[in-house]
C-alpha cells in the first residue's frame, strides 16, 4: 500500500470500530434480519482490513464469496425459516449469559496478554503487493495442488449434500405406483404451492 502511516492508522481505526460494533450488533440484536445485514457490514470491513494488509485479491474474494454468497444464503435461510414467534423463556437465562460473557472476557484477556508479551519475528523481506496474485496461483498449482483439488471435491460434496438434506423426503407406500415418474426426477413429498401462512 502506498498510503502514509497516518492514513493507514486512521482507516484501520475506522474499519476496526465498524467491524467490532457490527459484530456486537450481530450477536446482540433481537431482530435477526438486522443481524444478517450487520453481518454484511462485518464482512465488508474485514475486506477493507485485507486491503490494508496488502492483499487485494483476497479482499475481492472475501466480498464476492461472503457478501455475495454466504450473506445472501443466510438471508434466504431467514426468509424460509423466520416465524414471528418469541421463544419460550427459560429461567436463569441471565446467569447463562453472564457466565459466557465472563469466560469470553477471560479468553480475550488471555489472548491479548499473550499477543502483547510474545516477541513476534517481523520479516524485512520486500512485500509482494499486487504480485501476490501470481504467487497465490503458483502455490495453488505446485505445493498446494492436492488441497486445491480436494477443496473442489469438497465443494461438490457440499453442493449435493445440501440439496439432499434440504429436500422433502418421501418414502413411497408399498402398493404405490411410481412408474409415471421419470427416472430423472427425485421422488418428493407433494406440497401446497401457495399460502405458506400457517
Amino acid at each position, binding site marked *: 500500500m502506498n498510503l502514509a502511516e497516518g492514513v493507514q492508522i486512521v482507516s484501520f481505526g475506522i474499519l476496526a470500530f465498524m467491524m467490532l460494533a457490527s459484530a456486537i450488533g450481530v450477536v446482540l440484536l433481537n431482530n435477526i434480519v438486522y443481524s444478517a445485514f450487520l453481518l454484511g457490514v462485518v464482512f465488508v470491513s474485514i475486506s477493507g482490513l485485507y486491503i490494508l494488509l496488502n492483499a487485494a485479491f483476497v479482499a475481492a474474494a472475501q466480498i464476492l464469496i461472503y457478501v455475495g454468497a454466504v450473506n445472501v444464503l443466510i438471508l434466504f435461510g431467514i426468509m424460509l425459516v423466520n416465524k414471528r414467534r418469541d421463544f419460550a423463556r427459560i429461567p436463569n437465562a441471565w446467569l447463562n449469559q453472564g457466565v459466557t460473557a465472563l469466560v469470553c472476557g477471560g479468553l480475550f484477556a488471555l489472548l491479548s496478554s499473550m499477543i502483547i508479551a510474545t516477541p513476534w519475528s517481523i520479516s524485512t523481506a520486500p512485500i509482494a503487493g499486487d504480485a501476490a496474485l501470481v504467487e497465490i496461483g503458483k502455490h495453488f498449482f505446485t505445493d498446494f495442488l492436492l488441497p486445491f483439488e480436494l*477443496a473442489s471435491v469438497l465443494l461438490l460434496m457440499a453442493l449435493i449434500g445440501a440439496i439432499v438434506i434440504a429436500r422433502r423426503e418421501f418414502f413411497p407406500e408399498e402398493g404405490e405406483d411410481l412408474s409415471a415418474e421419470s427416472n430423472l426426477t427425485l421422488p418428493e413429498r407433494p406440497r401446497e404451492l401457495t399460502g405458506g401462512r400457517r
Partner: protein
Amino acid sequence: MQLEYFLLLAAALFCIGIYGLVTSRNAIRVLMSLELLLNAVNLNLMAFSNYSDPAQVKGQVFTVFVITIAAAEAAVGLAIVLSIYRNRDTVDMQEFNLLKW
C-alpha cells in the same frame, strides 16, 4: 501499523463470536456466529502473512482455503436448519435435544 493491532482485533472478533455461539437461541444466529469465528481466524492468517511472510504469501493461500470451506459449511448448515425446522417447527436451539437424552 503493527502486527499486534490486527491480532488484538482478531482476538476480539473471536471472543464476540464465541459469546454469540454459546448464548444464541436462534439456529441461524449460531451459523452467523460461526462465520464470525472463521473470519477472525482469517484475519489472523492474513496478518501473519503480511508481517512474517510477505514474499511468498502462504497465509493468503490458507485464507482462500478457509473461505472455500466456510462457504460449503454455510450451505450445509442452512440445509440442516431448514430440515430441522420442517420436522420440529422451530429454530430454538434449546429444543433441539434429539441426541441429548
